[in-house]
């Protein structure tokens, strides 16, 4: 039995369907992420789970019981808001103890549990401070502690790392993973940052225009996106116009613009002559220098047009033909070197057959 089941939930604002016939199952102990661009409906879905909005149609089940008529304060879920929403007139201890106080716990129990929680999040010496006297990271930890102290069945997190700078965000991601594992609480995490989703989640639901495009583990979503939107939204990917030439039992043979005949893994419901795109991740392309004296027949050839040095990796922009480019990425494993090829170098590119995908239009 799933902890939370969302059944055919639709929410409209006027004629616009913010969430359009969404169904999901979330298991106990899972770190589940709703990922999508802004306006995809992920926050609306989260607000419906929290109870702030009611779906127009559909059901939200907790332990197989419909909870749509249960108000937010009665749901065993807590939310960590994007702005943290810490109470400015309460101290750190007051904020963290708030859910216990609302639950009618005795003041001794509140004090005891707050003290323990403060120690866990390493904020003991800040217990009498007010939120405005804390740094962003500390406020963040107070928000997590406040959300977790009353042991909710489910913690909802609405882009909680959005306001932090990059370095701090990376640290907080690690803390968040540990926190979830230690607390054993089910997390539903909303974000538009695909790298954050990949790093944190057990499973990800990719949302677009109120619908769910794909639900799966990070690695499956990254490596086997089901459609062009998911492929394009998660990570970087090269998209080249292509047409299906032939279909065998295991492969599609494509005619790719400027690259010629390419075999990719078979895809269901594709017909010969279908048009679409071939997709391939930059880091899955292998670049080798082209020896001008050797036989180069049958190789896929391009010319280095530009490169972008980021430190750990360098992205090469390879020109296949006029105005047609493909990006490839190489790790800078050799010290002191910014790039392995010069602009204008002729290179050969290749990849493993199952690295490329075809997405029909």
């Amino acid at each position: 039995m799933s902890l939370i089941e969302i059944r055919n939930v639709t929410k409209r604002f006027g004629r616009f369907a913010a969430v359009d016939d969404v169904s999901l199952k979330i298991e106990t102990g899972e770190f589940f992420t709703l990922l999508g661009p802004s306006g995809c409906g992920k926050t609306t879905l989260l607000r419906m789970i929290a109870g702030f909005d009611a779906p127009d149609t559909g059901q939200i089940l907790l332990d197989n019981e419909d909870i749509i008529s249960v108000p937010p304060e009665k749901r065993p879920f807590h939310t960590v808001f994007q702005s943290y929403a810490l109470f400015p007139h309460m101290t750190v201890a007051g904020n963290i103890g708030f859910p216990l106080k609302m639950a009618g716990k005795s003041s001794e129990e509140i004090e005891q549990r707050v003290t323990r929680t403060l120690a866990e999040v390493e904020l003991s010496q800040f217990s009498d401070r007010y939120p405005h006297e804390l740094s962003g990271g500390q406020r963040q930890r107070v928000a997590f502690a406040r959300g977790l102290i009353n042991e909710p069945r489910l913690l909802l997190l609405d882009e909680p790392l959005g306001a932090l700078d990059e370095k701090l965000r990376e640290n907080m991601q690690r803390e968040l993973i540990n926190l979830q594992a230690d607390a054993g609480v089910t997390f539903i995490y909303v974000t538009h940052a695909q790298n954050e989703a990949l790093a944190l989640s057990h499973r990800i639901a990719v949302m677009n225009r109120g619908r769910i495009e794909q639900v799966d583990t990070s690695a499956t979503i990254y490596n086997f996106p089901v459609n062009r939107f998911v492929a394009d939204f998660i990570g970087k990917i090269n998209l080249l116009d292509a047409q299906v030439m032939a279909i065998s039992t295991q492969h599609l043979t494509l005619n790719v613009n400027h690259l010629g005949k390419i075999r990719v893994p078979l895809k269901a419901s594709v017909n010969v002559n279908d048009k679409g795109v071939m997709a391939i991740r930059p880091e899955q392309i292998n670049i080798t220098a082209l020896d001008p004296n050797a036989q180069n027949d049958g190789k896929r050839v391009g010319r280095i047009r530009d490169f972008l040095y980021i430190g750990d990796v360098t992205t090469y922009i390879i020109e296949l033909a006029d105005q047609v480019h493909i990006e490839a990425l190489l790790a800078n494993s050799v010290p002191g070197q910014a790039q392995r090829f010069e602009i204008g170098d002729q290179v050969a590119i290749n990849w493993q057959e199952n690295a490329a995908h075809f997405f029909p239009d």
Partner: protein
Amino acid sequence: MQLSNRLIKWLISGPPLVFLLIFFVAPSLIMIVTSFRLPGEFGGLVPLNIFAERSGIDSGLTLETYQFFLSDWIYLEIFLKSFVIATLTTIICIAMAYPLALLIANSPRKFRNLMIMLVVLPFASNFLIRVYAWMIILGPESTLSHVINHILGVLDFEPITLLFSPFAVLIGMVYVHLPFMILPLYTNLEKHDPILLDAAQDLGANRWQRFWSVTWPLSLPGIFSGSALVFIPVLGMFAIPDILGGTGDIMIGNLIKDQFLGTRDWPFGSTLSIMLTIAVLGVTVFFTWLARSVMRSP
């Protein structure tokens, strides 16, 4: 650049500074001195004689007026009564203004300005006219009086007069000062972040708990500034007790006015004014301290 900035600051603050020096600081000093002088036989003051010691004539300076003020209970009683009226007015204003300010702050943005305009609309007509209107509303021949006395008659009670009573004074005070409570409260409530109420609800607070744990404590600064704006003017008010109060309903303001315009005892009037000023300062310090101690956070 530094110098010219400083010059500009002085030029800007100069005129109001001079104005306040001439029309506030100087009169206050005169009042202080006057409170230590002796009243003239037909009003005014006994002339000062700084060489009094040597010539053996009365110097014209005395502490008697303060002794007189403190020795007669009637004056302290009037002070106390004024404090009671001011406190009651403030509490009633909070009780009446809070729901309205909350309603306005939670209304759609486009209606808020209209509603605030309606709150301040009474200021468009003269203060005295509005208070006189209450004379008619509360008068013995008014519909209100008839209705109330009819009900009292049915219930076998003695008829009452509404006008010229502490009740009428209180109504007038609340009526005139209500906007001064609504405006600061609204300004405060309007700034509250609605996400805090969502967070409180999410963490288990019901409607009542949300109000008392979030809205109310965050609105305390608004309540404090509104209370100061109501309490202090009510304390010194003389027109409303004059018009709506009975002979026993005089407040500090009336007493001071009488000393200058009636009995022509300037030193006693000045003494009363200074005692009022000290009382107001005390109240202000108290409110500031209260606001600080309750709200350590912004």
